[in-house]
């Protein structure tokens, strides 16, 4: 059982993030399954309820669960990897409070006020009067709070990486190293046979974390900025004057919004994931990363790539300039296949060099994560093509074979790999109760995630649209029943993992991560146990 009194501040902090993340994940998949059931029998929910849920589901999943787990893990890892103190423990605590409050408000904006412009918020839907000012205002405030939490995290991480704790280290080489530039310089030295290769200043996972965090700041700027616009509109409608939406060109808005939003998907997620893979591969194998200079350089290339790929979301927008579609939508996007492919190769080769390795939960889940991206990234490359996008855009293919494959299998399994790897470090060596449950978690999540995403992909190829209800039409019902079956496996996997973790840590331990229980209560609970 977990002895909370023996934990240091950083361990406790990371556990707080992890607990909240796993609870939000439970809410996300519950909503996912309700939507799934609705897709089998369209009489279950009113349209406004269904779409409000569809708006909340990814916000809770991405910011409440994925971001939360990533932030918690990085708050723990960055100081440990750099042998430094965290810059501010208070700001770190503030991060999870802000993120939880923000996600909670966004969820309420859908649940109570039926805000349902979905996470893309295409102009002018949010401000068009379709939703009440309360709904829009609550969503905007929630989103602003989430983005504030994101800024606080980024500031704290930057400060932890770069603050020099009294030493007089020059800033420029640290910054260059954090961007991966020394990886390029080393490659240049090797190729041109000029000079000696130098060991980079920053550990590779830190380069990935820093790089991902740059994109995180930019995406929070855009999403937060747009939310301020929403808040302005909500305020005026609340006061009885509705502002015209005509001041903002819908296509320009879409470009700006997707530029920011895509920094999450094609920027920080891919980069954070690559960083996590590298870290786990080195921890599991006990070896240096294979071709680490190339990996560093690839992270820098991914910076340029992630800023220039948003055009693949506008391939079906007929007024979008054709050169932008081809350059950003097709060509630069194709680079994602290369940078992700390099990350896959480097990770697998690092592990391969250390054969034989025991198949630990962390290794299993890491391979599951690599598998998820190996399936999801090429699906994205296919739809990022002028010809294919014409028949795939906004179908279930996009949200299934591409998005859920990457989110549930790729990102999800990578994060679980980190959870299983960090669990002993965060809990002072508490052992998980059941190996069988860990194995069940692995297989049920893997089969469920891949099965559901692939079935959605087939439904998409058969013409089923995303974000669309088909009342009275049973064309895609068999595919949705299969997707529901695989979805239930994901839920079963989650329950198995939660049971395993909670029974190993103890409910008391979990609560005490947040609040100190009175002695009497503790005694009562331990006698009950």
């Amino acid at each position, binding site marked *: 059982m977990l002895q909370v009194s023996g934990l240091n501040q950083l361990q406790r902090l990371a556990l707080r993030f992890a607990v909240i993340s796993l609870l939000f994940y439970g809410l996300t998949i519950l909503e996912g399954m309700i939507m799934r059931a609705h897709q089998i029998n369209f009489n279950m929910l009113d349209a406004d309820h269904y779409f409000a849920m569809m708006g909340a589901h990814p916000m809770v999943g991405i910011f409440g669960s994925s971001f939360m787990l990533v932030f918690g893990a990085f708050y723990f890892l960055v100081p440990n990897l750099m042998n430094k103190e965290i810059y501010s423990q208070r700001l770190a605590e503030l991060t999870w409070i802000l993120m939880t409050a923000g996600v909670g408000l966004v969820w309420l904006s859908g649940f109570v006020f039926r805000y349902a412009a979905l996470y893309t918020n*295409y102009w002018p839907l949010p401000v068009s009067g379709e939703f009440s000012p309360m709904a829009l205002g609550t969503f905007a405030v929630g989103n602003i709070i989430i983005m504030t939490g994101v800024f606080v995290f980024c500031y704290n991480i930057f400060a932890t990486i770069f603050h020099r704790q009294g030493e007089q280290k020059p800033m420029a080489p640290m910054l260059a190293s954090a961007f991966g530039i020394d990886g390029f310089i080393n490659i240049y030295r090797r190729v041109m046979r000029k000079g000696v290769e130098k060991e980079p200043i920053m550990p590779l996972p830190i380069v990935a974390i820093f790089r991902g965090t740059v994109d995180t700041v930019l995406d929070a700027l855009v999403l937060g900025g747009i939310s301020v616009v929403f808040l302005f509109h909500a305020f005026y409608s609340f006061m009885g004057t509705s502002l015209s939406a005509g001041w903002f060109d819908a296509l320009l808005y879409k470009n700006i919004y997707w530029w920011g939003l895509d920094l999450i998907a094609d920027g920080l997620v891919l980069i954070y994931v690559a960083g996590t893979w590298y870290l786990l591969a080195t921890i599991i194998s006990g070896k240096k990363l294979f071709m680490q200079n190339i990996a560093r350089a690839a992270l820098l290339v991914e910076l340029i790539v992630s800023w220039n790929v948003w055009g693949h979301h506008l391939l079906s927008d007929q007024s979008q300039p054709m050169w932008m579609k081809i350059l950003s939508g097709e060509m630069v996007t194709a680079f994602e296949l290369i940078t992700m*492919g390099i990350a896959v190769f480097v990770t697998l080769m690092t592990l391969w060099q250390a054969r034989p390795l025991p198949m630990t939960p962390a290794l299993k889940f890491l391979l599951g994560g690599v598998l998820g991206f190996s399936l999801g990234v090429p699906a994205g490359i296919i739809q990022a093509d002028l*010809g294919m996008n014409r028949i795939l855009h906004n179908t279930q293919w996009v949200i299934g074979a591409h998005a859920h494959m990457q989110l549930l299998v790729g990102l999800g399994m990578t994060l679980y790999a980190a959870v299983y790897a960090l669990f002993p470090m965060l809990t002072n060596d508490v052992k998980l109760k059941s190996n069988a449950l860990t194995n069940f978690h692995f297989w049920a999540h893997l089969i469920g995630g891949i099965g559901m995403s692939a079935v959605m992909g087939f439904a998409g190829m058969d013409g089923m649209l995303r974000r669309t*209800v088909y009342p009275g039409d049973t064309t895609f019902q068999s595919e949705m029943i299969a997707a529901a079956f695989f979805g239930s496996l994901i839920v079963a996997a989650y329950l198995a993992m939660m049971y395993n973790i909670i029974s190993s840590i103890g409910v008391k331990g979990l609560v005490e991560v947040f609040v100190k229980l009175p002695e009497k209560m503790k005694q009562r609970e331990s006698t009950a146990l």
Partner: protein
Amino acid sequence: MIESSQVMGLMKVVYVIYLLIVFSLMGMYAMKITKTGSEFQKANIFFYGWVGLLVCTGVGVHILTFNKIPWVKWDINRAAINAEREFNITIADYKFKLPEERLLIKKGDMVRFDIASEDHTYGFGVFREDGSMVFQMQVVPGSRNDIVWKFESPGAYSIRSTEYSGPKGSALLVKNVVFVATEKEFARLDKELRQKQDIYKRR
């Protein structure tokens, strides 16, 4: 001419093969990684070969579709294409305003759909009777949204908004409103349609 249904048929096969290849490779890797084995000798060469493969795939997909999928070139050149028939459609307040009660098209004719939105961002998609998609585009307010297409298979097609425009948006569906006819049929149906329209106008 290759049709979108054929492209999808092929894609399903390719996707299944791809899934099987990736599963097998990962399965083999996972089994072998737990066993002892010799050092990987030519890892560097393998790496550059891998990157080469990725580059070729990334670029190759676009070259292939540019050459094999006809609507890519139609789309790029659509401003210069003279369509045999043109339909101007408006969407407002979650309703299609169609120029005619039936959008009649002669098989093999190049048609232009020009769709304007008066309020939200919508989509415009044409679907076969079995629910599969012929094509779609976005309909953005304040922008020109036009697409040219050549229908090769006679039959009835439905139109539907393919972009989320709010909870009411799913109702934006008109069943079997596009009708593609063979040359013979077309002359008869077109005449009938015109006569009907005249009667309406006179009324």
